[in-house]
């Protein structure tokens, strides 16, 4: 038994080392954002330094409107996720619960999922033209609507899996008791699939918060988001290390905090009902 214990401890130590090494790029980025110029461009690179500064962050807030970009992202991402979640959950519920004639149900489901494979770049040009005509370019609700391109298929497919795991008998019992579909959806289906909802929510939120291509084309002036700001410090031949890394840290923090708060749900949600 004690021999097994030793093996376990050794394995655990090795695992810690592996994970810490895995996360080195994250440390390196964060560390860069707090460095003075001389420590960023040192040879050999300084793996660790105590000479820290907030200059990059201060410059971003004062000279580049960091908080303004943060606000834009904080409007667009939740708005687009809310839109996709409301419409997507209704569709997913329909696909999970009802029988459609023939194989139409499963055909629609796999058609919707296959849309997720399409890259946004294939639609961004015509979307820009349509949006210009409808005056949706550079509007918060316009860009949020554009994000349904990748959010909606993803949300419908994931939620369909989660809703299918809610036992149908529970819903049938409620139906017999005189509850209508809306009550059932909110009082039974949603609460019983909380981990799935949380997982879907955070993945869609991260995808919208982190989206770059559509934002760079459709949110051109008044609604520019954080990824666009970060990319503005990165050019073909060169990049502004301090501003790029500092804006990256600020951009990553909100989603990371939310994600780590609900990580219990995410882990449960990502186990999927298929793996009971």
């Amino acid at each position, binding site marked *: 038994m004690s021999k097994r214990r030793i093996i376990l401890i050794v394995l655990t130590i090795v695992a810690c080392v592996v994970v810490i090494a895995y996360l080195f790029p994250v440390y390196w980025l964060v560390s860069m954002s707090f460095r003075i110029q001389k420590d960023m461009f040192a040879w050999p690179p300084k793996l660790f330094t105590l000479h820290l500064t907030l200059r990059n962050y201060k410059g971003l807030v004062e000279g580049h409107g960091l908080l303004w970009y943060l606000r834009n992202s904080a409007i667009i991402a939740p708005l687009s996720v809310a839109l996709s979640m409301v419409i997507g959950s209704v569709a997913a519920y*329909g696909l999970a619960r009802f029988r459609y004639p023939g194989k139409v149900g499963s055909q629609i489901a796999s058609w919707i999922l296959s849309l997720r494979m399409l890259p946004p770049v294939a639609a961004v040009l015509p979307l820009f033209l349509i949006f210009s005509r409808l005056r949706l370019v550079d509007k918060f609700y316009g860009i949020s609507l554009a994000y349904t391109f990748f959010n909606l298929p993803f949300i419908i497919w994931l939620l369909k899996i989660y809703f299918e795991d809610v036992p149908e008998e529970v819903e049938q019992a409620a139906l017999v008791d005189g509850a209508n579909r809306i009550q059932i959806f909110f009082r039974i289906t949603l609460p019983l699939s909380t981990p799935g909802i949380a997982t879907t929510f955070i993945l869609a939120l991260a995808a919208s918060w982190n989206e770059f291509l559509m934002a760079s084309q459709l949110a051109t002036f008044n609604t520019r988001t954080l*990824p666009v700001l970060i990319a503005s410090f990165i050019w073909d031949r060169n990049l502004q290390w301090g501003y790029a890394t500092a804006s990256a840290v600020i951009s990553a923090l909100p989603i990371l905090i939310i994600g780590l708060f609900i990580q219990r749900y995410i882990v449960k949600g990502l*186990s999927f009902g298929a793996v009971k």
Partner: protein
Amino acid sequence: MGHKGGFHGLDGRTISRANFESRRRRWWAGVSKWLYLLPALAILVGIVIYPLIYMFRSTLFQWQAGIFGRFLGLSLWAKLLTGETLRIALTNSVILAVGTVVCELLLGLALALFLNETLGRLRTVLRAGLLIPIFIAPVIVGLMWRIIFNPQYGVFAWAIGQRGFSPIARDDLALYAIMLSEIWQWTPFVFIILLAALQSVPIDVLEAALVDGASFPKRLRHVIIPHILPAIIIALLLRSMEAFKIFDTIQVMTHGGPGRATEDMTYLIFRTGIWVSDVSTAATYSWVLVIILTVLASFFLKYAYRERG
């Protein structure tokens, strides 16, 4: 309309109120289930299908500043399908897609098998740490690796002891640098799905296999893999869906270069359509990709649904 509390059915016969109610309800149930799908389908048609149709039209006509000009027919298709540019981009896309998905699955499985053996409390902490890459923007991940691979001051050049060396500046290595950043970001996603599945492998079955003296590869093949197969398929499906969409990391790390070394299909469409503003060409490339992805998705989904039962 009715008499004695009854209603006329379609055939003119009188039916009872209860009967009418139940018919009405059945009719409503038949109709209402479509209403659940309607908003989603309407949005998808507007945001996905209509743009694709628009793009298809611009493959047939010379597009200029929002106006469809001269009719091209399929001549653009014929020209681009045989072109070197498409071949390079398609090859890069396939290498990226297959390479990232395969590596993510193998590494994710290895990581899950490995961390599944570690102490309980610490496992939760390590798992939380590995959640970090999933939530970071691909733009940021690209930035990370670009800083690490900086030829003059990067840690990579320092670690291998060759100042001035950078894989993203080499046309034979740049694509693998992009691949690395993708794999780094998404292996943890696969890992978390597979770890959850591993924890549900019944202990008595595993112990029975141990008692029988089955070696680790044998246990893996005959007990563990079959049990976590549904999870593997879900991970495979979720990751393959994204595999042909790699763009942000390329934009940040290499801009498709050096030369065309890291130009995949999405980047090619971006470059021709948005930088060069040759929309008809970009549209044709888009449609080549759409056709390939649609065929791929239908094969893939058929297989995945069959395996999942």
